């Protein structure tokens, strides 16, 4: 009896003490509400894949971010509650590695005290960075992490500090499925996906769930593969009506080239990772016929969008090539952070988070963007059609 009383007392004491400790914690945290903006600059950290497997895409994004920053700064900077503040970029390479990405995020939020982070390009690296960003209450806006779970916690609640500027896979894969079934009237489809990225596997999965026809065969390749002849020869034998190939232009370009060379001329439908001028260069203009891909950044649609026209011209003037989708998404990400700061009239990282969550009808290069309750970007989607290497049409899918 006595023993248990003592036990109870110590138990209470322990609870009381830990409560006091936690109370201390919360008071400490409420005084340091994220990273405040200091001096004459708004610091934006860039956690990006500048080398390693996704280095090519990361560098395109870096170009987009730098272009947007230069434009904003040449106009005086971001309007923070009436005062113009210049953007200072702190660009760090996460080497397409999850551990490096986590440490880059820690450096950016703790040492550099950035107000917001743009990045990463890939879902894997981006997910690894979330704990450090959440702890420091700094928002991270990924231009291209497409996995549906990227912005969600394990229990299905939204990650409070994580946003994306692109579609999530279920939406894009579903659009591809609808387009192939309704518009192309293809009933027998083979799926050929990139299994080295969450992007490719996620889209392949979403497509297979939502396609109404028959998925005859599903095959995978990994990033950096160059030879697809064997898979395509096997496909040719299965009498398919179309191929759904979610992945990036560097491999899909080769798939198109090799499919046409072995005489497999069925439509090849892909996703926004294909929307790059390099696709046609790798595939060869003659081979790039009967090619479709879902994209937010349709060049024909973009011609009616003054923001996009301005971006495409500026990009061409600076880098002498057609603007890739990744640069466009990163460019939009930078402007979305600017918009969030100006709406909230503060560049404190928690305020930017709030501003990003409330972005509505933001007029970006990749269309009118609204951030929904799951921190996904919703924007119109189009399917572009390539013939002889040229974009000959685009269909809006509802």
């Amino acid at each position, binding site marked *: 009896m006595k023993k248990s009383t003592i036990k109870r007392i110590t138990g209470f004491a322990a609870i009381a003490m830990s409560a006091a400790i936690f109370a201390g914690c919360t008071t400490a945290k409420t005084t340091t509400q994220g990273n405040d903006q200091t001096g004459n600059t708004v610091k934006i950290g860039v956690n990006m894949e*500048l*080398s*390693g*497997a996704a*280095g*090519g895409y990361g*560098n*395109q994004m870096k170009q987009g971010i730098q272009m947007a920053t230069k434009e904003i700064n040449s106009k005086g900077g971001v309007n923070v509650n009436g005062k113009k503040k210049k953007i200072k970029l702190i660009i760090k390479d996460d080497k397409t590695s999850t551990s490096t990405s986590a440490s880059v995020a820690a450096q950016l939020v703790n040492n550099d005290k950035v107000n917001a982070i743009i990045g990463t390009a890939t879902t894997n690296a981006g997910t690894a960075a979330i704990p450090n960003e959440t702890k420091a209450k700094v928002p991270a806006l990924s231009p291209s992490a497409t996995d549906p779970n990227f912005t969600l916690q394990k229990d299905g609640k939204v990650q409070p500090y994580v946003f994306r500027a692109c579609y999530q896979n279920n939406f894009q894969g579903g659009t591809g499925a609808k387009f192939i079934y309704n518009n192309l009237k293809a009933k027998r489809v083979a799926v050929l996906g990139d*299994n080295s990225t969450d992007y490719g596997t996620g889209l392949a999965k979403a497509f297979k769930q939502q396609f109404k026809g028959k998925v005859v*065969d599903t*095959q*995978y*390749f*990994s990033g*950096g*593969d*160059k*030879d697809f*002849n*064997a*898979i395509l*020869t*096997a496909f*040719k*034998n299965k009498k398919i009506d179309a191929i759904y190939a979610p992945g990036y*232009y*560097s491999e899909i*370009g*080769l798939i198109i*080239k090799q499919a046409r*060379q*072995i*005489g497999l001329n069925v439509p090849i439908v892909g996703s926004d990772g294909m929307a790059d001028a*390099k696709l046609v*260069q*790798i595939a*060869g203009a003659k081979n790039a016929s009967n090619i479709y891909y879902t994209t937010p950044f349709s060049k024909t649609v973009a011609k009616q969008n003054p923001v996009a026209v301005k971006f495409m011209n500026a990009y061409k003037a600076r880098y002498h090539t057609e603007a890739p989708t990744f640069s466009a998404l990163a460019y939009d990400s930078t402007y979305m952070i600017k918009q969030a700061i100006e709406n909230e009239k503060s560049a404190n990282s928690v305020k930017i988070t709030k501003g990003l969550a409330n972005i509505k009808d933001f007029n970006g290069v990749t269309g009118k963007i609204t951030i929904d309750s799951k921190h996904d970007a919703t924007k119109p989607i189009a399917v572009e059609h390539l013939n002889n290497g040229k974009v000959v049409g685009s269909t809006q899918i509802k």
Partner: protein
Amino acid sequence: MTTLFQQLINGLSLGSIYALLALGYTMVYGIIKLINFAHGDIYMLGAFWGYYTINYWHFNFIFALLSAMVVCAASGVIIEYFAYRPLRHAPRITALITAIGVSYFLENGMSYLYGADTRDFPQVIKQVNYSLWGVRVSNIQILILATACLLMILLQLIIKKTKMGRAMRAVSVDPDAAELVGININQTISFTFALGSSMAGAAGVLIGLYYNSIDPLMGMTPGIKAFVAAVVGGIGSVPGASLGGFLIGLLETAVQSVGLSAYKDAAVYLVLIIILLVLPSGIFGKNVKEKV
């Protein structure tokens, strides 16, 4: 049946690339017992050399191929001189780690200088498809197969019929004894590196032309697979490396054609494990007992 032949053609063209790369591994291993992991990156250098000379100096294909072989031979010799020669008498593992370091240096150096993005290789030879009883073969596939076979025969002649070849074989059997009979070991090893690297350079230009896509990391996976090919054929044996290359190419094609494409790399490495367990000296390798 047509599909089977088509897959055979696919496998042979893939295999000839692995074979060309495996030759470099096997020769270098044969002579200084070093697995030169930077070999795949020499192949990448060859592809980039072809890209620049064709695009900016307007070389034709033959000239681009030959000049890439010369440039890669030179870079192989330079790498040997600066990275491996100082470690000639160091433990084998030191040289192996250095080789991995050189490989990273070349990959990331090229990414830094020229960007990590994929580039399209200039199509100097227009692709023509021939159809034979329903099997499609392109002129470039024939070219790759022919060039690979030609280079392998040439290599075999150099090793078996020339004085330098005899020196190479002597050094590989016993370097000390070779030196005693008046063979310049350093020169012979440099020559081996030059020869192996020139094969990789040729493979680089051929693959650039065939797939029309090059990037600084392109040497990584083929390099490792070529290493597997060299082990399968019996590391140190030149005909073994050629055979191993074709076998690995055919195996990869077969795995993909039966619908297991996701496991094609795994299958190659599985073969490596099996060979190392069952036949550690490879198909053509000699089982030499080491005297203690």
